[in-house]
C-alpha cells in the first residue's frame, strides 16, 4: 500500500530539517515535506508553486472570468475560502503576464444566529475577520444571516443571462486588456468604511424560529445552505458582481456529491458540484478550489500562515450519525485514509456530469425549484411531494380540495421567507429534495393524521 516502509526504530539524528528519506519528486533536491495524493512527495517550495499554479490554471482553463470583471468571493472564515482569498490576493499582485485580472470583493455571512451564539461572540468573530479583510484592501460586505428574511422574492428568480459570448471573445478580451495595460477597466474600489450592521433582536428570533422548526439536522443544514446561497446571490446582484466564487474544496465536493445523491438531489449534481453553476442566470457561481484536497489546503495555510477564523457550524461536535452530511463526511474521510485515491475518484466522476438542458429558449423555459433554483425534476401531478404542503397562516380557514392537502400550522415559514401569495400550491414549486426539506419543517402532530391516508 502507499505506506512508508522505512523502519524508524533506530535512533534518529536531530537535524534542522526533518530527516526524511524521500526527496521531492519534482525538483529531486530538497527533502520532501508533504505527501499529496498517493505517494507524490513534494518539498515546500515546489508545493507552493504547485498550489499557486493550480489556481491560475483552473481559472485560465475555464475562461469564465473575463478581465476587469467584478467577482465576489464568498469567504466563510474557514480554511478553503481563506486560502482562496490568499490566492486571489497573490494572483492580483504579481507583475507577470499571468496575473489575475478581475476586480474582487469579499462577502462574509455571519451565521451566529443559527448556532445560538451571543451578540458578543458574533461581534468578536466579525471583528477578527474584518481585520483580515481590511488587510487585503478589497471591498468587503459583512452580512448577518438575518438579512435573508428581508430578501425580495426576486432572489429566487433566474434572471436572463447576458447574451452568450462568442467563442473567441475571451481571447479578444484578454488581448485588449493587455494592450491597454488594464487602464480602461474599472479599478478596484476603495474599501468603504463598513460598520457592523445592526441586527434586530426580533429578526434573530425569527430566524432561529425558522431554523428551529426544522426537525432533522440534515434538513437544517440543507436549508442553511439554501439561505446562504440566496443571500450571497442577492448581494452579488445588488452590488453589481457578475461572478461569485465559492471556496469548496475537492474533499468537500466529494462529500457533497454523495450527500446529494442520498438527499435526492441527483438531478442537480452537475450544478451543485461543477466548476461553474449558472442556475441564477446573471450571477454565475464558480468553484476554483475544487481541485484542492482538504489536506493540501490545510498544509498550505499552516506553512504560509494564511489567517483563518474557525467559526463553529450547526454540525460541530455532533455525533457521526447526526445528519446525512456528517455521516457521509465521516465515511469519505475514513475511506480516504486507507485508500488515498477515494476523493479524487469521486471528484473525477463529478467532472463527467453534465447538466441536461431541457429547453434553451430566450427566456427561461424550464420550471425552477423555488428554493434551490434548479430545474424541477419532479412530474408534479404524480409525485409524492404533491401531497406535502401548503401552509397558510393559522388565522385562515383551511381548504381541502381533492388534489391538494392543505395543512394549517403555527408558523407559515415559507410565506415568511418568500412572501408567497396565500393560495400558492407549493408542491408545484419545489424539487424533490427541497420538498423533503420543507416537509421536515411541518410540525409532526399536524402532519401525522394525513400521513396514514397515503
Amino acid at each position, binding site marked *: 500500500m502507499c*505506506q*512508508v516502509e*522505512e*523502519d*524508524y*526504530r533506530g*535512533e*534518529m539524528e*536531530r537535524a534542522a530539517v*526533518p530527516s*526524511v528519506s*524521500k526527496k521531492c519528486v519534482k525538483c529531486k533536491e530538497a*527533502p*520532501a*515535506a*508533504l*505527501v499529496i495524493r498517493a505517494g507524490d*512527495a513534494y518539498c*515546500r517550495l515546489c508545493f507552493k508553486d504547485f498550489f499557486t499554479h493550480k489556481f491560475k490554471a483552473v481559472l485560465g482553463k475555464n475562461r469564465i472570468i473575463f478581465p476587469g470583471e467584478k467577482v465576489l468571493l464568498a469567504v*466563510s*472564515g*474557514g*480554511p*478553503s*475560502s481563506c486560502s482562496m482569498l490568499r490566492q486571489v490576493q497573490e494572483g492580483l499582485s504579481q507583475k507577470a503576464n499571468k496575473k489575475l485580472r478581475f476586480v474582487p470583493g469579499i462577502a462574509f455571512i455571519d451565521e451566529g444566529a443559527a448556532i445560538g451564539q451571543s451578540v458578543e461572540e458574533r461581534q468578536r468573530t466579525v471583528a477578527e475577520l474584518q481585520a483580515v479583510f481590511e488587510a487585503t484592501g478589497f471591498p468587503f460586505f459583512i452580512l448577518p444571516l438575518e438579512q435573508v428574511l428581508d430578501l425580495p422574492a426576486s432572489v429566487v428568480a433566474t434572471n436572463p443571462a447576458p447574451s452568450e459570448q462568442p467563442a473567441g471573445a475571451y481571447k479578444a478580451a484578454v488581448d485588449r486588456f493587455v494592450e491597454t495595460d488594464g487602464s480602461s477597466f474599472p479599478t478596484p474600489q476603495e474599501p468603504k468604511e463598513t460598520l457592523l450592521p445592526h441586527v434586530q433582536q426580533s429578526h434573530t428570533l425569527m430566524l432561529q424560529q425558522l431554523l428551529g422548526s426544522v426537525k432533522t439536522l440534515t434538513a437544517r443544514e440543507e436549508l442553511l445552505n439554501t439561505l446562504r446561497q440566496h443571500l450571497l446571490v442577492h448581494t452579488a446582484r445588488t452590488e453589481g458582481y457578475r461572478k461569485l466564487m465559492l*471556496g*469548496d*474544496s475537492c*474533499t*468537500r465536493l466529494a462529500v457533497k456529491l454523495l450527500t446529494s445523491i442520498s438527499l435526492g438531489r441527483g438531478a442537480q449534481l452537475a450544478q451543485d458540484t461543477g466548476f461553474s453553476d449558472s442556475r441564477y442566470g446573471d450571477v454565475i457561481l464558480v468553484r476554483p*478550489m475544487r481541485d484542492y484536497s*482538504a*489536506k493540501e*489546503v*490545510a*498544509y498550505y495555510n*499552516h*506553512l504560509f500562515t494564511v489567517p*483563518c477564523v*474557525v*467559526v*463553529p*457550524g450547526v454540525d*460541530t*461536535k455532533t455525533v457521526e450519525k447526526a445528519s446525512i452530511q456528517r455521516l457521509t*463526511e*465521516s465515511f469519505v*474521510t*475514513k475511506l*480516504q*485514509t486507507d485508500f488515498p485515491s477515494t476523493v479524487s475518484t469521486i471528484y473525477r466522476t463529478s467532472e463527467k456530469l453534465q447538466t441536461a438542458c431541457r429547453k434553451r429558449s430566450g427566456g427561461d423555459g424550464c420550471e425552477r425549484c423555488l428554493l434551490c433554483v434548479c430545474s424541477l425534476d419532479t412530474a408534479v401531478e404524480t409525485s409524492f411531494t404533491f401531497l406535502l404542503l401548503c401552509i397558510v397562516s393559522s388565522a385562515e380557514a383551511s381548504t381541502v380540495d381533492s388534489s391538494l392537502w392543505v395543512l394549517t400550522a403555527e408558523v407559515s415559514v415559507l410565506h415568511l421567507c418568500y412572501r408567497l401569495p396565500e393560495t400558492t400550491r407549493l408542491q408545484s414549486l419545489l424539487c424533490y429534495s427541497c420538498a423533503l426539506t420543507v416537509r421536515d419543517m411541518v410540525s409532526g402532530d399536524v402532519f401525522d393524521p394525513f400521513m396514514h391516508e397515503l
Partner: protein
Amino acid sequence: MAASIAIHLEFGGGAELLFNGVKKHHVTLPSQSEPWDVKQLLVWIQRNLLKERPELFVQGDSVRPGILVLINDADWELMGELDYQLQDQDNVVFISTLHGG
C-alpha cells in the same frame, strides 16, 4: 532511561475546540524507559489535555481520519506516522480538515 522531553503542540482547523480553544501547548513529557513515540503521545494527550469528546480526536490507536498531523512542518506520513520517535523540542501540529471551507 530516556530523559523527559519538551514538545510544542499546536491544534488548528477547529481541533482546538476540543482543548478549550487553546491552540498552542508547551508540554513536557515525563521520562520513561523507552523513547516516546507518536502513539504514546496520543495516549498522553488524551489523558492529560483533551477536555471533551475524545472520539472526535483519536480513533483507536491513531488520530481520527481527517486530522492532519505535521511533525516539524512535515507530513507525518514521511516520518513514520505513529512510529516516529519524538525528539526534544519537536513541534507537532494537529490540523482538523473536517471543519469549514
